[in-house]
């Protein structure tokens, strides 16, 4: 059994140009060295029934022994405000905020604190092990503590506060439920003795949603909080609850109030990592590990769904104790890509213990782009980096109870999955829920990603490399371009190519990416879509942080978690998220077909339709038997139509000039329609009774001699290598790509 996790790492940047440097950040808890080799990936799927792992080894100075060390991962998001004179004043003070805890029973959590946990000095307001609010002052010797008598309820808004009264020598804590009825009222308060004098410690950051373990502006943190914090206020003096709550209710507390130390408005700078203080002290801060922004505040009333319209209703940040955006590991290796290298899927292979029963073979993936303006081929294959990130470290099969039913059989875990089950500090995918049950809406490449590398899960990196393997096999030169760059550069990047191929599952698209393909097609570009469930979810890339994407699942679509009401717009861009179908651009409008069903029982062949005999498409079916099934073979379920499939539908945007070439519409009971395909429920919706559950192949001519060819199935790519690459799926794909690279217009359209 091959150990794929004894050494892990990530490459930064994830996508590099020839001439640029890529750096590898590595860690091993058990090995002190490994044998490194830089590879160009041809096939990343180890399945012995297929091509198997196939690499080119260019030979680099990097190849050889690399020393390793352990670099820990420190998940958990928080807000940090560097120490400042306004925070130094001694004497009475008060702190208050709206709180929506999502895991109050999960253990002690810091909510707002100026505290160093290494010495026990400072003050902190947080939750104790029982989920009760607790306010502590410490001088390093004996802490003074006051604890609320009733625990907080999960996912219920409450206003909380604490005051230190130096004159009376008292600590006070209080909580006020915003919906105090029907068993939801936890309103309570408590008073306990405190010191007559208290001097806060020096050089300690103010921390939201965690506790600092040390001094300094960027301390290590612990006791991370799960849940929302909205409109925190910090004031001089021991204020009564009513006064503190009024300060928090006010969206614009008086800046001139000399007792107002800090009043943070998290609705400002939602697309950034900065937090803003409204007070005269300018105690602005920053966020670590990318907590969720554009979250509804305690004042959200349903009058809008879109944070950009009423940002003042979106003053909450949802922190998660397992957020991980940036592993922050030091660099172990650096390599400058030679200027003459081909673009491609690349990886650093790390091997150790070669002769043992448990040899180590782990990979760190990266991509070398064909830079804009430097196309070397007429054909480009798109590395679906947005989709790879959306799936990064998916624990769906570990955590979601529906997974085995959905996948129609026993779950087979790889060594990576077994590792991920124990090591949640890697950060999960946008298919998963955080430990508090809320959905992961962000994903970043600045951390090890187990399923975006050779030997990783077949969805989607592995499946896509079957297309690269086939292109290499037939000797078809090609460039690799990435979703990241299509988002950044748009149609001009695609415009350099006569033909652009998208892979097995290009599911996640930003508006700029969709616009780029639309403009490319309208300008005579030829687009070959060799996959299923593409162009489905609307995402955003972060405006400044590379290789970070966001999805809000909303309440429609095949979603593994459901977004909260009002929280389905993208914090990175301000745009609505959810399905492109719900955003007026169903996939059918772009590529003729759109996602309609899953089928995991097995995969199926297509049958040719009348469109395949269209004289104008003779070039497409050359050498193919139109009376024989198309693709009754393949590595995924024994057919070319399977896993996730797309269908033609004129009402959703398939074009009048489109030619419907083939269909697989007998998907039996395993064909399960996606939720948005059903208006109302009835028992006849599955594939054994419903011909709308199907995979379709379609050709659509576009303006200026352009065209789109779509296969509508994820399983397609994994049928290309069947019978030593001599098969109907490979022949049809080859016919299309050859013709699409030929600049002559399509006769008859």
């Amino acid at each position, binding site marked *: *059994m091959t150990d794929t996790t004894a050494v892990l790492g990530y490459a930064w940047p994830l996508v590099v140009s020839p001439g640029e440097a890529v750096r590898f950040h590595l860690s091993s808890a058990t090995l002190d060295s490994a044998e490194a080799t830089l590879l160009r990936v041809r096939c990343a799927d*180890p*399945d*012995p*029934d297929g091509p198997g792992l196939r690499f080119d080894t260019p030979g680099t100075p990097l190849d050889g022994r690399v020393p390793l060390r352990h670099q820990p991962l420190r998940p958990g998001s928080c807000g940090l405000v560097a120490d400042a004179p306004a925070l130094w004043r001694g004497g009475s003070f008060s702190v208050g905020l709206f709180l929506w805890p999502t895991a109050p029973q999960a253990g002690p959590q810091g909510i707002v604190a100026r505290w160093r946990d290494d010495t026990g000095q400072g003050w902190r307001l947080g939750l104790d092990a029982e989920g009760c609010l607790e306010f502590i002052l410490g001088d390093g010797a004996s802490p003074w503590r006051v604890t609320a008598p009733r625990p907080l309820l999960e*996912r219920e808004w409450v206003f909380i506060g604490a005051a230190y009264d130096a004159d009376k020598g008292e600590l006070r804590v209080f909580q006020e439920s915003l919906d105090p009825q029907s068993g939801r009222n936890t309103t309570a308060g408590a008073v306990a003795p405190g010191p007559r004098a208290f001097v806060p410690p020096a050089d300690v950051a103010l921390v939201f949603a965690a506790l600092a373990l040390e001094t300094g502006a960027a301390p290590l943190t612990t006791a991370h909080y799960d849940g929302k914090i909205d409109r925190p206020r910090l004031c001089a003096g021991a204020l009564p609850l009513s006064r503190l709550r009024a300060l928090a209710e006010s969206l614009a507390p008086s800046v001139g109030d000399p007792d107002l130390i800090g009043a943070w408005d998290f609705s400002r700078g939602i697309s950034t990592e900065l937090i803003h203080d409204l007070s005269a002290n300018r105690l602005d801060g920053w966020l670590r590990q990318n907590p969720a922004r554009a979250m509804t505040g305690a004042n959200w009333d349903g009058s809008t769904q879109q944070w950009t319209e009423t940002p003042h209703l979106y003053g909450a940040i949802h922190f998660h104790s397992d957020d991980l955006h940036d592993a922050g590991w030091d660099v172990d290796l650096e390599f400058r890509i030679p200027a003459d290298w081909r673009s491609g899927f690349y990886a650093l292979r790390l091997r150790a213990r070669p002769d043992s029963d448990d040899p180590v073979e782990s990979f760190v993936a990266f991509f070398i782009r064909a830079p804009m303006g430097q196309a070397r081929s007429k054909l480009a294959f798109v590395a679906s980096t947005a989709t790879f990130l959306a799936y990064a470290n998916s*624990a769906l*099969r*570990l*955590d*979601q*109870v*529906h997974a*085995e*039913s959905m996948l*129609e*059989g*026993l*779950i*087979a*875990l*790889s*060594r990576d999955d*077994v590792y991920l*089950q*124990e*090591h*949640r500090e890697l950060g999960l995918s946008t298919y998963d829920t955080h*430990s508090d*049950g*809320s959905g992961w809406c962000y994903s970043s490449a600045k951390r090890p990603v187990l399923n975006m590398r050779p030997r990783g899960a077949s969805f989607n990196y592995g499946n896509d490399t079957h297309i690269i393997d086939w292109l290499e096999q037939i000797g078809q030169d090609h460039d690799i371009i990435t979703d990241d760059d299509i988002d950044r550069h748009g149609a001009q990047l695609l415009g350099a190519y006569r033909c652009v191929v998208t892979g097995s599952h290009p599911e996640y698209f930003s508006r700029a990416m969709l616009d780029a393909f639309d403009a490319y097609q309208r300008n005579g570009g030829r687009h070959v879509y060799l996959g299923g469930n593409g162009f489905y979810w609307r995402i955003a890339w972060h405006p400044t942080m590379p290789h970070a994407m966001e999805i809000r699942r909303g309440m429609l679509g095949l979603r593994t*978690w*459901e977004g*909260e009401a009002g929280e389905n717009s993208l914090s990175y861009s301000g745009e609505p998220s959810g399905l492109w179908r719900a955003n007026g651009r169903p996939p059918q409008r772009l590529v003729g077909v759109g996602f309609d069903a899953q089928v995991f*029982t*097995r995969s199926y062949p297509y049958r040719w339709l009348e469109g395949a005999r269209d004289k104008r498409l003779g070039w497409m079916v050359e050498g193919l038997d139109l009376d024989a099934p198309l693709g009754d073979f393949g590595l995924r379920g024994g057919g070319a139509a399977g896993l996730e499939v797309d269908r033609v539908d004129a009402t959703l945007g398939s074009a009048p000039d489109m030619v419907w070439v083939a269909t697989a519409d007998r998907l*039996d*009971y*395993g064909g399960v329609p996606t939720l948005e395909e059903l208006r109302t429920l009835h028992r006849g919706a599955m594939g054994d009774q419903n011909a709308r559950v199907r995979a379709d192949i379609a050709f659509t001519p576009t303006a200026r001699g352009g065209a789109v060819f779509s296969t509508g199935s994820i399983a397609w790519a994994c049928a290309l290598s069947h019978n030593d690459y001599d098969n109907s799926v490979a022949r049809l794909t080859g016919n299309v790509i050859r013709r699409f690279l030929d600049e002559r217009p399509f006769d008859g359209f």
Partner: protein
Amino acid sequence: MLVNDPEAAHWPVDPARLELVEEFRRAPRGPHSDALQKLLHRMRWSGVGKRHVLVVLEPNRRWMLARLPGKRGLPVETFPNRVFTSLAEAEWAVFVLRWEALTGVPLQDEKPSP
């Protein structure tokens, strides 16, 4: 927050319906009759007796029986003595475990169909 409740699986399993056992033994990977589909859904949705899974020892060639711990961060429990060389064999082995967990009745013939 929408959650998926494994306890919601409530199709009643009748220990007397050994013809479903036989049908599964003959064709663990399907296709299956309506009643067997329901039985399998009952087993798979709830993951009765903690969810049994496989750990891949060799891609598409050898698998080991294992069980999920039901809690994040805990290790996967493995059964190194139970190694399968086909998925059909593995499906049958887990079916036998789940049948007993659901009905209280062990299956006599624990060999999969050749």
